């Protein structure tokens, strides 16, 4: 009997010793069970997964002390040390969520992001360049986005009551000086850069990160393509010129080289123009872009571009309609070069930085007077990011700017210039309290040697994501920018102009639909006021101030109608400021109160075609009529433009693109020029500022030569 008992005891204990059973359930912080959790004994093959109800059972031969690991997608891995013979083995745990880069809340206040990789984006890069009214210009497409105003006689980016000079443009984080081509007054300009070079853009209409300075209203950051997919040759034949581009791709490097020539002369001879051209705008450019991978963690890029453009135009003067007016000539030479590097290091460090240099020379002739000005911008920047955990990261950077400006009247032997060195330091911390809540605080400090001014701009933002995926962001900050070079050269001691932004944003993107609503308040201080005219500024002061407030709405839908993508934008801006030659706070001529844009793109598979239409309008531009009392006492009639485009892809490597702006031929007026002195009747004569032509018709044929026959230039359109 005793022997039997002993045997039984031995058997039982043997069983107990030989096998361990662990049970339990796994749940998240809200008490919901988590299925599919990987549960295993560290250092062995022993493991199992939790069931749909979060429960698990793990049976194995015990090895002594061990560590039980719980691992699941979206949660922080947890390790539980288990001591030998610890009974009963019921281990139920609560896993903490991990911050998920893809689904976590992002700060969307002020941001209009276009990217293929990130989620909280408004557009894809391709969407931008296929906007019919854009005619291949990046800025043209941004003018259909909330917060921007179309100023058809300028062509640059005007954001929320801000002047075009208040928008800074960056390529791969480095500032681009003179990003727009030089043009005669009231002839719209275009961005110099080929949209095809960029894989995405970050356009902020306010409240942006401490990384960006020298911008009072807005920052546009363009990111160039890291590695093109394949070697190919691209040829474009257009009604207004042509171009050729070659891409060579190796394992660890690639090279793009291209050249373009455009001349509007033949086109303008065929299509009636509103303007009296002596010599139509003509330009050529050449660019080269190289990339080299150094190991798997470092990417080096170098980009250089040079171009020359010229035009001559007769500008009629109000009150003397029988004469051609004043002959304006523009000859612009521009070169831009930059090198940049990105490096992902060990221990959650990453770095990027580089240097950029741009030089812009304008040879202007106004009647008999010739003016020559040169503007050079050098920017060097280094940024380091350390991720201390998935919840906390710190980004810090150091920047150096050199601004050089020279203005000369060669015939009279007059010249003036200035040179400014600026230093900037910034630091910005991102803190995720959960996947739903993020705080960002940043500080940007700057110093200008010329102005002997030091400044500190604090910036904060936060965002909260709701259960329904919508998110609310709030941003506020101080922004500083030196006055424009043309004025600064008159008075080098001018200090920063300042703006304070407050932005409240709601953003929801779900099932192919995006809703974005934003309201803002912006306060301006230290704005420059002067008397006199361009190149002859007098009584320069910095007592100007003002504000801009309003809201904008954006709705995009790619889901409801098959093969159709459309978006609608409405912006309301109420802005008044004292600047330029104004004596009081007035609504600027570039800030219409109401702007509306509708873009529709539809793909017709049977015709292998994409057709697009964009319609923009606003309620008109303010101007001062000297025949009436007061400033900015009048408003033009509303602006309207209906553009159509048709892209036909008969073969995968051939695209034919036809586009027409202002199809209705509406005579849009952006303001009036008045004669400087009254006529015999005591009235100031006026001349409307009109579009260069009633319509612009674009025809282009784009051919791609590649081993891969499916390659095409769709990105070019």
């Amino acid at each position: 009997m005793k022997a039997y008992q002993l045997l039984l005891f031995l058997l039982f204990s043997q069983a107990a010793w030989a096998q361990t059973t662990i049970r339990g359930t796994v749940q998240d912080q809200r008490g919901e069970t988590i299925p599919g959790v990987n549960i295993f004994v560290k250092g062995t093959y022993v493991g199992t997964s939790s069931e749909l109800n979060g429960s698990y059972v793990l049976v194995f031969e015990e090895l002594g002390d061990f560590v039980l690991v719980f691992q699941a997608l979206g949660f922080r891995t947890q390790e539980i040390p288990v001591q030998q013979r610890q009974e009963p083995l019921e281990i139920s745990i609560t896993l903490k969520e991990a911050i998920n880069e893809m689904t976590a809340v992002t700060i969307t206040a002020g941001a209009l992001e276009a990217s293929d990789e990130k989620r909280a984006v408004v557009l894809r890069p391709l969407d931008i360049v296929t906007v019919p009214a854009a005619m291949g210009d990046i800025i043209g497409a941004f003018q259909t986005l909330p917060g921007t105003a179309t100023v058809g006689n300028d062509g640059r980016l005007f954001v929320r009551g801000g002047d075009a000079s208040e928008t800074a443009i960056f390529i791969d984080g480095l500032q681009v000086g003179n990003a727009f081509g030089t043009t005669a007054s009231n002839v719209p300009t275009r961005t110099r850069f080929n949209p095809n070079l960029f894989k995405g853009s970050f356009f902020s209409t306010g409240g942006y990160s401490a990384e960006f300075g020298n911008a009072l209203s807005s920052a546009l950051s363009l990111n160039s393509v890291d590695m093109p997919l394949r070697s190919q040759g691209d040829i474009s034949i257009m009604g207004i010129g042509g171009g050729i581009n070659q891409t060579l791709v190796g394992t660890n490097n690639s090279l793009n080289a291209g050249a373009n020539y455009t001349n509007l002369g033949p086109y303008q001879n065929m299509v009636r123009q509103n303007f009296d051209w002596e010599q139509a705008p003509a330009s050529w450019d050449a660019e080269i872009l190289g990339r080299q991978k150094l190991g798997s963690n470092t990417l080096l890029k170098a980009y250089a571009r040079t171009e020359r453009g010229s035009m001559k135009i007769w500008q009629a003067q109000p009150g003397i309609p029988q004469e051609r007016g004043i002959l304006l000539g523009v000859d612009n030479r521009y070169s831009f070069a930059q090198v940049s590097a990105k490096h992902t290091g060990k221990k959650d460090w990453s770095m990027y930085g580089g240097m950029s240099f741009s030089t812009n020379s304008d040879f202007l002739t106004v009647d008999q007077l010739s003016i020559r000005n040169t503007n050079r911008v050098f920017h060097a920047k280094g940024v380091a990011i350390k991720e201390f955990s998935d919840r906390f990261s710190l980004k810090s950077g150091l920047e150096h700017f050199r601004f050089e400006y020279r203005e000369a009247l060669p015939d009279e032997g007059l010249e003036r210039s200035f040179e400014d060195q600026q230093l900037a330091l910034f630091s910005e911390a991102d803190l995720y309290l959960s996947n739903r809540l993020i705080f960002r605080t940043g500080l940007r400090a700057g110093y200008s040697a010329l102005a002997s001014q030091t400044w500190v701009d604090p910036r904060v933002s936060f965002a909260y994501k709701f259960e329904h995926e919508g998110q609310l962001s709030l941003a506020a900050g101080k922004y500083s920018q030196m006055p424009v070079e043309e004025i600064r050269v008159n008075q080098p001691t001018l200090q920063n102009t300042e703006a304070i932004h407050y932005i409240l944003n709601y953003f929801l993107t779900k099932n192919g639909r995006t809703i974005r609503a934003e309201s803002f308040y912006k306060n301006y201080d230290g704005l420059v006021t002067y008397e006199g005219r361009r190149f002859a500024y007098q009584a320069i002061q910095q007592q100007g101030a003002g504000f801009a407030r309003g809201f904008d709405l954006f709705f995009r839908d790619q889901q409801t109608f098959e093969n159709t993508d459309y978006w609608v934008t409405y912006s309301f801006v109420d802005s008044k400021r004292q600047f330029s030659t104004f004596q009081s706070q007035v609504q600027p001529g570039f800030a219409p109160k109401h702007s509306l844009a509708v873009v529709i793109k539809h793909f017709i598979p049977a015709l292998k075609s994409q057709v697009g239409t964009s319609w923009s309008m606003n309620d008109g531009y303010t101007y001062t009529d000297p025949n009436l009392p007061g400033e900015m006492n009048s408003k033009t009639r509303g602006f309207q433009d209906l553009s159509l485009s048709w892209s036909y892809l008969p073969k995968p490597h051939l695209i034919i693109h036809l586009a027409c702006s202002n199809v209705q031929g509406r005579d849009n007026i952006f303001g009036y020029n008045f004669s400087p002195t009254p006529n015999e009747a005591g009235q100031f004569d006026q001349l409307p500022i009109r579009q260069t032509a009633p319509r612009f018709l674009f025809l282009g044929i784009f051919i791609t030569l590649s081993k891969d026959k499916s390659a095409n230039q769709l990105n070019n359109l």
Partner: protein
Amino acid sequence: MKTYLSLSAILMIFTWNLSFGNPLNDAYLQAMSTEISKLYQAASVEELQKSANAFQRISTMNPSEWLPDYYAAWAYANMGFRSQGSAQDKDNYFAQAKKLADKAAQVSPNNSEIVAMQGYITMGELSVDPGSRGQHLSPVAMQTFGKAINLNRTNPRAILLMAQMEYGMAQFFGQGPEKACGLILSSLELFKKEAATVKNNSIEPLWGEDYAKGLYQELCGN
């Protein structure tokens, strides 16, 4: 003396092999074969998740092997394809698949199977939102399959997946499926060859033949 030394050396190697090499290797092979057959049977997202977990456990134990991560990546990619959840859910699965495939590629660079898997995952990301991702991702997928084929011209999976992309392109441009069908046929031949040369209990990737047959029936059978 010499003989003795060399004999003991041989013995040492032999015993070392026996005691350290093979049992571990056996455990690995054993675990892999078991899990691979389970993976081929897995139909639901839940079963695939269990499979993926199992391969990740094996991977932790055998960090110098590429196959555990490869199969885990395949399981996650298939979860993405089969998930009935939101776009975000699917993207999460594909992102995890990508991470695992990239890890496998670090262990075994220029491996045609892994490159084909990376392309398969890209195809998955594309399928979540073809309207807005097609233009951007289809050249990436084709490029990746092209690379996989160049690395090993007898990889039937790379050719089969390329066929599927070719078919999508042809549809887009209103062309016939001839090119895709040609590719499927050559993949079928390669699958046959693969089946003939493969050893029992092989843990190498062998999936795709049934899918190729089905696709051929659907697109090219008449």
